[in-house]
């Protein structure tokens, strides 16, 4: 076979190029695979952190629910250690029924008016 000068130039280029490409491909595969495994490890550690956080959250929620119990808050008017701030925060309110303001919602906006309407409604 006769070799020309140009074909020897091309083979000089192609051989290292495709060898390099092949090596690069193999290397990329290995790189990606190790990256995936590394990410899997990372995700696993995040999952463990998540489980620990959830565990702690449950304990805190339970503790909070215990602290917010009406018996603990002492929200009852006859209880000792009553604190209005605690009452409001805990959601247990015992308004004085002798001095009460009833506000009824009307659909149309109207000026303020005062009346002696009891506002009692029948079901």
């Amino acid at each position, binding site marked *: 076979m006769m070799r020309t000068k140009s074909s020897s130039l091309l083979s000089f280029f192609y051989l290292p190029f495709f060898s390099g490409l092949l090596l690069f491909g193999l290397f990329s595969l290995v790189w990606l695979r190790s990256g995936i*495994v590394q990410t899997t490890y990372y995700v696993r550690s995040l999952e463990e952190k998540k489980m620990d956080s959830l565990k702690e959250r449950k304990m805190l929620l339970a*503790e909070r629910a215990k602290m917010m119990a*009406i018996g603990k808050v002492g929200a009852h008017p006859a209880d000792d250690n009553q604190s209005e701030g605690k009452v409001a925060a805990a959601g247990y309110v*015992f308004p004085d029924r002798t001095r009460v303001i*009833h506000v009824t919602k009307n659909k149309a906006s109207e000026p*303020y008016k*005062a009346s002696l309407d*009891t506002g009692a409604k029948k079901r």
Partner: protein
Amino acid sequence: MKDAVYKKRSVILYTAIIFGFCAIFVRLSLLMVVEHKLLSDKAKSQQVKAEEIQVRRGGIYDRKGRELAVNTELESLYCDSRDVVISDDKIQKLSCALGMPQKAFREKIQPDKRFTWINRKLAPETITKVRAVLGSDTKVKDPEVKGFGFVPEAKRFYPKGILASHIIGAVGLDNQPLEGVELQYDKYLKTSGGKVYFSRDAGGNKLSSGVNMEAKGNDILLTIDEGLQYIVEKEIDTAMAKWKSVAAAAVMMDPFTGEILAMANRPAFDLNELGRANRGHVRNRAITDIYEPGSTFKIVVGAGGLEENVVNPGSTFDCGRGSIEIGGKVIHDAHRHGLLNFREVIQKSSNVGSIMIGLKLGRENIYKYAKLFGYGEKSGIDLPGEVSGWIRKPEKWSATSIGAIPIGQEVAVTPLQVLRAYAAIANGGYLVQPHIVNEIRTNEGQPVFKFSQKEKKRAVSEKTAALFRDILKTVTEEGGTATSAAVNGNQVAGKTGTAQLIDPRTKRYSKDRFISSFVGFVPADNPKFAMIVIVYEPKGAIYGGVVAGPVFKNIADQALSYMNVPRDDGLDKNVLLVSK
């Protein structure tokens, strides 16, 4: 000559190379084809691990979303007895940390088992101490200790302690339901688990599976309100202490919807300490205990008489003798009255007058209206253990029954049945379905179940209900038996009950053991709730109006304030009503 030698050597070399490649090929074929299954299974068993999904029960909440039952995550200590290595010093430290006697600890690690529980669901502080002793909180394992491990487990926690204990119920050590809503709605609260398969590396470290390792059951929203429940429990505690009674119960219900707003029994128990509870304290008296209702049963002859038009509010009855004889038995009034009209018979709770109404109504009608008001059958409340009570059919009545049943003797009812009957008067004549669960939702908030009232059964007509309601109002007014139950600012309608208990020795009515009760609803014309209060065997007083009436008043005062119910007499000069 040389060529022949070279040729011979190349043949040998090529043969060796080919032979080598053939050997490799054969070996690879053996590994990848013949032994493929065996080797891949072995690799899988090393690389792939199965783990159970942690299953958690759903939460239980009150009607405003406040937590009543939640899960906490604890750890349980186990040992593999065959692999246990532990020094005496460590045994001492470990048993001290666990709060166990050393002997008991040694017994646990003796059995030749792969798995033995040492202690279940340890408190976080105990876990820390145990881990410090075992050295499992450090990266370098303690060589003196081997064969112990921790398993995460969920523990049910009831943050409100004793509150609503009979409603919520409890679970056992393995989270199996035992009582109350936990038992009744177990199929909704629990969920199925399953297994998750994930890969491990050569060091045994788990890789991510991408699957949520926890599965939670549905959440349940009850109809009760924690605030109202607390008020009720506090007041019956006060009554128990005051009257030194054996037990007490109270149930508060919305008379229109049947929603149970509060249900309390005493004695009660702490749900977090079920193991220490007295078994007798665990039962829900409001639905499991029957008693003779006494005068509260007069609703049957009263409302029935009006409905059948055998009486009207103006009908008069001569109760001047203070007693009446029926079938050879004499029944007395607590106090002698003169001529009473129908209204006054109920207001003053005259036994003589009630029996006279019963005689006019007849045994068939008495039985009919007792059944219409729900007596003698279960209410169908969604709690376990409800009993139906009983009332005998007319053909089985004795000669004295017509004198006993109208005044609430010779019948057995539960407190909830009595409340339900009076709720029918409150709501215009309908018998509602009491229920404790309002809604069930998934963990993500999607509705699974919402209670809806079935077609309501009519007990009496609206007219009769309105008439009888007006009469019941007089019970808490001057001249009535329950002025102590009157609430400042709103009218109460109700009825007292004072029932004798049977003495087990003599099999006759006891002279000193009574059940005092009051059942009513407020505000009378537009009731926000109906409630029954029962005090079992009070000492020092027996009448419902004296013992149970004040409890009703105290609860109602606070409940009306809590529920923001305006007063009926809102025209006080100090009150300004502003509308926008």
